[in-house]
Each structure stands twice: as structure tokens, then as C-alpha cells.
């Protein structure tokens, strides 16, 4: 295996990963902070460095509709968007998932309007939580590169055939320059062979895709979609294991940091995991047995891994970077609580909301969450959620 260590912007590294994946078709509409990914891909295509079709469109709704068409004829297809762009794709997100078209999407996470914000949080991803795609979160540039390559292999596996979103935090990941180990084209070709569709539209063999489902079949079709998305879990693990064998970089649905002997856990997603690690180090120095849980796989939700990782914990603080207004507060925490509800031994779970619309969450705030959760554990009554770093 050979790889080259280069410093580059994470968006550019992601575009390079898409190029290395020998993508056949890209259709996207530029939106901050995803712009550099598609800009670089359009340059690669225009300069002849990437033999693919780049189809410019007038909106994200059209971008994903074009992707549905190109994926349906058997082309390896990529798109990228953020925030309002994902919202405009909403209708087609569900359609391509139901049609089982293995499109790969980069989602440079950004807050939803209004108020208008171009900055990072997870409200776009959470609003599309139930779209039926595989959804993966990343922590740094290398993970973005690795997960982009893996996403094609996972999505296109004939046991899966489910579109896949690779989430990367807008700006805090997309616009930073980091060192990346770029795997050679030769190695990628071996890891990721050409896409072999199970069904492809072709005049020689007529097919109907996206037909209507009468009430007597719709429920069974949805059940099939749910079971197949859950079953993709084992293929995701298999692909990550193969990638780990090739590169030495191993990925798990739930990853841990300093969880040995931990009584209190902190659960975080995305690039803020790195800041949280610093906070965990500081709190460990204070003699408090804290550990960090990083949730990488959002869909299919890794129920068993979550339950396994929680063993021995008495208290858990969950950070949500989105808010379900007028309802549960933190969507991630709500899932965690659901996963633990049936367990006889489970930690007391506290939901924290912070880091909305580009608001920083420094190590101090993570420390505050840990201390707050420990304090609240002694009380009987607990609020639905607490906020950190928000003027109340």
C-alpha cells in the first residue's frame, strides 16, 4: 500500500477522494460551506484530470434529481450540499433512498435559516434524519478522505444499495488545512472496483423504477427499507475493517477515548470530538473518571454498540448541536435515551445543547457539561435539556 502525506484544505481532500473513487457523474449546486468541494471537482473535470460528467444545475432539487437519473443508469454518482441546499433536496432524498440508488453525498453541516446562518451546526443533518440514507459523521480531514472512499464501497455493495451521506462540519472541517494521507490510485482501484448495479435503466432491458405503491404493498416496501438499512450495519463494519487492514486507520460505529474505568461519559459527534478529548484529559487530571464516546454512525443507529459502550457508566452527558424546538430538545440524546430505555442497568442521561449556528464550544464548556451532569445526577427532577454557552 502506498500513500502520500500532503497538507491541503479538507474540502479539496474530499474532492480528491471523489476523483480517486473514479466517479462517473457529479451534479451539485454551490452553497456555503460545501462550495470548495464541488468547485474543485468541476476544475478537475474541466482540466481533464477526472473523466466524469459534471452536470451544472439551477438548484439542489435538480442536482439530486440528476443524480437519481445517473445512478439509475448505473453511473457512480456524487453530490455535495449544505443546510438550505439539503432542505431543498428533501423530497428527492427520500425518493432515491426508496429506489435504493447508491449515491454518495458530502454534507458540509451548516445551520438552517432563519435567522440566516452560514455557520456550522448539525441542524441540517438532524432535519433529514429519517431520509433513509446511511449517515456517517467525521472528526478530521483524514476521516473525511477515508470515509468518502468507504462510502462508495458501502453504498454500492449489492447487499446494501443505499445512498450514503458523509457529514463534515462546515468551516471547522471543510475550510481548514490539515495533513492528509492520500491513498494511491492503484490501491483505491483494488479496494473499490467499478460499480456493478443490480438493476440499471437500459433500452435493451426495460424496467420501471420509482413506480407507485398501492396501500396493499406500501407498508411492506417501507418495512423492507428499514430492515435493509439496519442490515447495512454488517457491511459497513466489513468495509471499515478492510480499509483498516489497508491503511491502518480503523473505524467503528461508536469510538471511545479514555473510557477505561469511566463512571461518567460524554457523547459527542463530528469535529467537536477533538475539543472534547482535551476537556476529558483536563477532567481526568481532576481525578474524575470521565471518558468520551464518539458517535460516528448515525444511520443505521448502532444500538448494540451504544449499549455496550455505556456499560459501567453511571452518568452520561450528551451534546446536541441541533435543537428540536418545542419538543425533545436534542435529537441525538433522544436516540441515546431510547437505546437505553429497556436496559435494567443504565446511566442517568443528561441532554446539553450547545454550538448552534457557529457558536464555539471550547474545552471549558465541555468541562462544564461534565460537572453539571455530575451535579444533576443527585437531583430527582431533571429538565428536558440544558444549554451551555447560551445567554439565558
Amino acid at each position, binding site marked *: 500500500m502506498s500513500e502520500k502525506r500532503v497538507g491541503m484544505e479538507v474540502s479539496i481532500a474530499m474532492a480528491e477522494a471523489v476523483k480517486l473513487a473514479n466517479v462517473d457523474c457529479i451534479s451539485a449546486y454551490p452553497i456555503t460551506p460545501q462550495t470548495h468541494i464541488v468547485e474543485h471537482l468541476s476544475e478537475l473535470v474541466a482540466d481533464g484530470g477526472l473523466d466524469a460528467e459534471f452536470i451544472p444545475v439551477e438548484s439542489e432539487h435538480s442536482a439530486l434529481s440528476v443524480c437519481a437519473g445517473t445512478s439509475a443508469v448505473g453511473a457512480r454518482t456524487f453530490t455535495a450540499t449544505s443546510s438550505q441546499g439539503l432542505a431543498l433536496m428533501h423530497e428527492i432524498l427520500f425518493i432515491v433512498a426508496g429506489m435504493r440508488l447508491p449515491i454518495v453525498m458530502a454534507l458540509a453541516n451548516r445551520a438552517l435559516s432563519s435567522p440566516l446562518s452560514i455557520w456550522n451546526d448539525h441542524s441540517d443533518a438532524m432535519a433529514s434524519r429519517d431520509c433513509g440514507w446511511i449517515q456517517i459523521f467525521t472528526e478530521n480531514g483524514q476521516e473525511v478522505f477515508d470515509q468518502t472512499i468507504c462510502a462508495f464501497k458501502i453504498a454500492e455493495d449489492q447487499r446494501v444499495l443505499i445512498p450514503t451521506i458523509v457529514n463534515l462540519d462546515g468551516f471547522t472541517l471543510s475550510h481548514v488545512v490539515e495533513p492528509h494521507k492520500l491513498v494511491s490510485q492503484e490501491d483505491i482501484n483494488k479496494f473499490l472496483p467499478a460499480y456493478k448495479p443490480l*438493476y440499471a435503466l437500459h433500452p435493451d432491458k426495460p424496467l420501471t*423504477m420509482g413506480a407507485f405503491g398501492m396501500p396493499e*404493498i406500501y407498508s411492506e416496501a417501507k418495512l*423492507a427499507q428499514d430492515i*435493509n438499512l439496519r442490515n447495512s450495519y454488517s457491511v459497513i463494519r466489513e468495509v471499515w475493517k478492510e480499509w483498516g487492514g489497508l491503511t491502518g486507520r480503523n473505524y467503528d460505529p461508536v469510538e471511545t477515548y479514555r473510557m477505561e474505568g469511566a463512571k461518567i461519559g460524554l457523547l459527542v459527534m463530528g469535529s467537536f470530538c477533538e475539543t472534547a478529548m482535551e476537556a476529558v484529559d483536563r477532567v481526568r487530571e481532576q481525578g474524575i473518571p470521565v471518558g468520551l464516546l464518539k458517535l460516528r454512525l448515525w444511520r443505521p443507529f448502532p444500538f448494540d454498540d451504544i449499549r455496550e459502550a455505556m456499560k459501567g457508566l453511571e452518568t452520561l452527558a450528551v451534546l446536541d448541536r441541533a435543537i428540536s424546538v418545542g419538543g425533545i430538545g436534542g435529537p441525538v440524546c433522544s436516540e441515546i435515551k431510547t437505546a437505553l430505555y429497556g436496559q435494567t442497568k443504565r446511566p442517568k442521561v443528561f441532554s446539553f445543547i450547545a454550538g448552534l449556528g457557529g457558536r464555539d464550544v471550547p474545552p471549558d464548556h465541555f468541562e462544564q457539561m461534565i460537572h453539571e451532569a455530575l451535579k444533576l445526577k443527585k437531583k430527582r427532577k431533571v429538565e428536558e435539556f440544558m444549554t451551555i454557552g447560551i445567554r439565558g
Partner: protein
Amino acid sequence: MSKPIDQFTWKDIPIGCVVTEAGNAREYRTGDWKSQRPVVETAKCIKCGVCWVFCPDAAIYKNEEGYFLANLDYCKGCGICARECWTGCIKMVEEEK
């Protein structure tokens, strides 16, 4: 199709609900859900075919004797033929009758 669609379990559905059999819409009788059906009094019919022209679902055919009748497998019971008929030979009758 191996068995009727209302006996399919989730496992019987092709990936992505792809329909691999061309023209299988023929098996689907779209007229099942009408609440009224057209009844023609052939004695009054002048075989002009205005009902055939106006039928929005192409559900009217010409029989061997030249009369225009509705194929009830596809007729939705909209009543346009009865309304447009010059001689008034088409009457809409409730399905349960």
C-alpha cells in the same frame, strides 16, 4: 407475477421496488374503485362515438355491432360520457345496484 401483490411479504419485493416485468400494469384493474357505472340503452344509441371521444381514460370501445360501450375494468365512473351523449342513451347507475 408469482402471487398476487397483496400476499407479498417484505422479502418478496424486488430491491427498490423495481418492476422488471414490462407491461404488468395490465394486471391492475383501475376501474375497481368507481362508485357509478355507465349503462347504455342501445335502442336510443346512434353510434356517433361522442362518448368515445370524450372518455378521459380511453375506457370506451366499439363492439362488433358498432355500439360504444365502457370497459368496466378501466372505467372510473366519472360520468362524462353520460353528460356528453347527444341522445341521452347513457345513464349512470350506482355500483351497488
